[in-house]
Structure formats: structure tokens, C-alpha cells
């Protein structure tokens, strides 16, 4: 039986960049016990001899002609920005002070 502890969920939430309340962490950890049992069924038939399919179409290296076409103007590209400055996206601090 698979399960995820409250701390496992907290670690995953950190990786997924989602802040979670204690209540949410506990609720998800309980739900995952049930969900993981259900999805783990795939292991019953996934033998070593079966190839994996990642995509429904057997496509390889799709190319198009390298032609210059109009693109968004800076104003259009920035039109949904939560904050902007000097025609750029203004973002919170990314690097540490040290």
C-alpha cells in the first residue's frame, strides 16, 4: 500500500511552489493514500517487455521554414504583466543578498 505522509506532501508542495496550510497538507496526505492505491494498478501490467508511449503521434523532428513573421510588440507582450518597468517585466528579487 502506497502512502504519502504530511511531510512528503509538504516537500512536494515546496517543489511545486505552492504554499499550503497545515490543514491542506493533512487532507492531501489522506487523499493520496486512496488515490495512489488506485493509480498503482498500472504496475500490474507494465512489464519490462512493454515499450513506453509518451505521445500518440509517431512524430520526429518537425521542422518549418525559417521565415521572419510579425511577433508581439513589447506593449502587447507586457500587456498582462503584474508589474513592469522600462519596457521589461518587473519581478521580485531573484538572487540572494549575499
Amino acid at each position: 500500500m502506497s502512502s504519502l505522509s504530511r511531510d512528503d506532501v509538504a516537500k512536494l508542495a515546496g517543489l511545486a511552489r505552492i504554499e499550503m496550510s497545515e490543514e491542506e497538507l493533512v487532507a492531501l496526505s489522506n487523499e493520496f493514500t486512496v488515490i495512489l492505491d488506485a493509480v498503482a494498478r498500472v504496475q500490474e501490467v507494465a512489464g519490462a517487455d512493454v515499450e513506453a508511449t509518451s505521445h500518440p503521434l509517431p512524430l520526429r523532428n518537425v521542422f518549418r521554414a525559417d521565415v521572419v513573421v510579425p511577433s508581439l510588440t513589447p506593449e502587447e507582450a507586457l500587456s498582462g504583466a503584474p508589474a513592469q518597468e522600462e519596457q521589461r517585466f518587473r519581478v521580485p528579487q531573484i538572487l540572494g543578498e549575499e
Partner: protein
Amino acid sequence: MIRSTAAEMAAKLVAGEVTSVALTQAHLDRIASVDADVHAFLYVDTEGAIAQAAAIDAKRAKGEKLSPLAGVPLALKDVMAQKGIPTTCGSKILEGWRPPYDSTVVANLKKNDIVILGKTNMDEFAMGSSTENSAYGPTHNPWDLTRIPGGSGGGSSAALAAFEAPLAIGTDTGGSIRQPAAVTGTVGVKPTYGGVSRFGLVAFSSSLDQAGPCARTVLDAALLHEAIAGHDPKDSTSINAPVPQVVVAARAGDVKGMKIGVVKELNGDGYQAGVRARFEESLELLAKAGAEIVEVSAPNFEYALAAYYLIAPSECSSNLARFDAMRYGLRVGDIEGASAESVMNLTREVGFGKEVKRRIILGTYALSSGYYDAYYGSAQKVRTLITQDFTNAFAKADVLVSPTCPTTAFKIGEKANDPLAMYLNDIATIPVNMAGIGGMSLPSGLADEDGLPVGFQIMSPVMKDERMYSVGAALEAALLSKWGAPLLDKAPIMGGAK
């Protein structure tokens, strides 16, 4: 006028019996009168729709050659980017976002002069089977307002069933076009994967997502299918081949000599009695129309649901990483000294709903080192087995059929706290997405026990979409002559009898 089919509306427009402005206004009036109860729309573009309709009327007056659906109105699922029009995907994280570009589907609609009325409600980022996961409140099924209209495209299906629009666009990742069609007594088609461009369709699970037509008749769906389909250089997974002849097939509706395979595993236990009864009856009608009914087996379909709930969350955990509060959408916690990481964490906490978070976490787990092979890797192998089952079945039959869903529409709130029960709704629709083939749902009648619509699913091989239209049109004609009137005539009349 609003109860006509899209094909009939188009004919009246050509004959000059009605203008696109009048037709568009009639639908806007209808929305104004019933949508407070149905809540199919998240945004109604009154000005834009009337302006587009007026431009089309002007072109027609000048004698310009127009496309078959020119001037007919349509409802657009809110997962499709439309330039300058709010596009939320049913999520708080995109509230107020107006895309600076058109999706290819929207560009094709505009090119074909199809009038876009507005954006329809959906489960947040198309994750759900009931439209209850919308951050903007649920949509109600016009057959019974206490019930779900299906999901994720419940806004589109409800808009059709409530005569708010004769055409709609949906997207189908695990059944989000077909299941809403089934539970609202409408028609929905998931084309072959790659048949319709995904450019500008906000991605949930890229290897499964496919946009398609929703309508009240098979012919209307075919006309819309042709308008939106075709190769698009902006989508590298779009198929570079001629669009299947779906309109020709829908007009002919000929099944003589066709072999129709009944999938043994998609019936029986867990399927409501009324659903099974309508399915058997439809098979008899197809046999009478000249088709040969055979039984086929797809032993690995029982693992499809489990594989889907690993593959779709895995892809979604990656796709939804783009909602990082930096370039567009919601930003929370951007105070002096706050790090980008803390802003992302807080924004995604507030911006995403419960089901989206559940799937992102599940996907993050399934892709994490140490578990990848056991979960995501195994699910990909199941995908191979399901595709092989389809290949074997299509060696024995031209199309495959099943009930679209195990049950009719359930009550709003009934399954909201039981994710697994909710996921079971999609048990018959998911295999189609896993293999990338075509799937259609059309109404096959009402279940005796609850008087609610039942869907009949037709599945066709890759790029043989015309086959499901042949079978769908044949069944639709046989059912119509049996009923004497369209099934939606039996739905409660809303907003006055017009």
C-alpha cells in the same frame, strides 16, 4: 429561431431571411434571459459579437463568397485564447488576463466568419467532470438545474442545451467534450489528436488535449469541425494531412456494410440500467440501418483510468509551472524584500483551486526521482497496451462503440469530496485520448429511471474521423424518426417558450 440547427440558421442567412445581427441579438437576448440560472458563460462579448455580425452582414450584402457557417453564433470554452477578451480557464490565477493574441481555433473561427458570443465556464484548467471546479461557480444542467452539465466543458454543453448558442468549442483531455455532451443531450466530438491545432489552447496535458466541435446535431458538429481543423505550423503536433471528409460523411449518414465493434469492457457492471438500455436500442437501430455489429475486446482498458491519472497530472505539473506570477496573471505577496520564490508560492496558493493543486502534487510525485519508473513510466507502458488494444479491435471493426458515460448527470455537490468517484465518470472516454484517436458522443435517448439524457460514444481510428460522423448521422436519423422530434424538445422550457 434559436431552436434551429446551425445548418438551418446558415441557410436562412444565405436566403436573406435573417441577418447575422438579428440572429446574434436573439442569442444575446436568450443569454440575458436564462444564463442567470444556467451560468454557462463567464464572459459575454455583446459589443464584439454584434460588431462581428454586422461586418459579416455587410460582406454578404456586397455579394462576397462566405463560408458555410458564416454569421452563425458560437460559444467559446474559456480555455481558448482570444485577443483582448478575458481568458480565465476557470481559474483565479488568470482573472483579468486578456491575451494579446488569438489561438489558431479562434483565428479559424474568425476566418470562417463564425460569430463569437463569449467565453464559457469550465472546470479550472479543464480538470474535472462536473464544472464544479470552476473558481467562478458551477454551471447548471438545463435538463435539471440541480445537476451537473458535465465537465470540464460544462459551460459549452449547457449553452447548447439551453439554446444560448447553436455551436460551441470544447477541449477534450479525458472526455471533457464527450461527457458534457452525453449528460446534456448534445453532440460533442474529439477529433483525432493533431487534427485541430493546440496553439493558444491553454495546456493541461499536452499529449492528450484536443479541441473539437460541440453542437446539437451531427451535421452541425461536422460543419464546425471542418471550419476549425487543419494543419498549423504553429503547433508541431498538428497533423500535416487533408482534413477528413466529415461533412460529406455526416450528410450521407451511410452505415451499410460497416462493421461496428462493441467494446465488451466498456459496459456492464457500474453502468446504469437506463444507460445500458439506450445503448442496446441504438445498436439495434444501427443494425437495421445496415451495419454489422460485432463484439471486440480491449483487455487493457481497465488500466486506462489509473494510467490517465498519472499521465495527465504529470504533464499538468509541468505545464502549469508557467503560472509563476512573473509575466501575466495574478501576483500575490510582492512586498518590499519578498523573494520571487515566496511570491510564486503565495500566488499559486491563492490562485489555484483544490483539484488543480491535488493534480500538481500528484504529478510532481509521479515524476520525482525514485518513483518515476513505478508511476509515470508504468503509465506510459499502459498507454502502449491501450493503443495495441485499439489496433487489434480496429482490425475487426471500422468503428468502436460504447456508452459515453456510466451514468446520467449526477447532482451538484454529490461527488465533490470524492475525487476517485468523480474520476470514474471518464472511464469510457479516457482510452480514446490515450491512443489519440477520434471520439464522438451523441444523444441516444433518456434513461427510464431518471428521465435524463444518455450518450452513445463512437470511436474511429487515427484520421478516419469521417467514420464516426457516418455512424453518428445514421443513428441520429434513426432516433429522430423514432422520437418524431429532437431529444432537446423534451427538456424543460426555460425563459419562456420561444
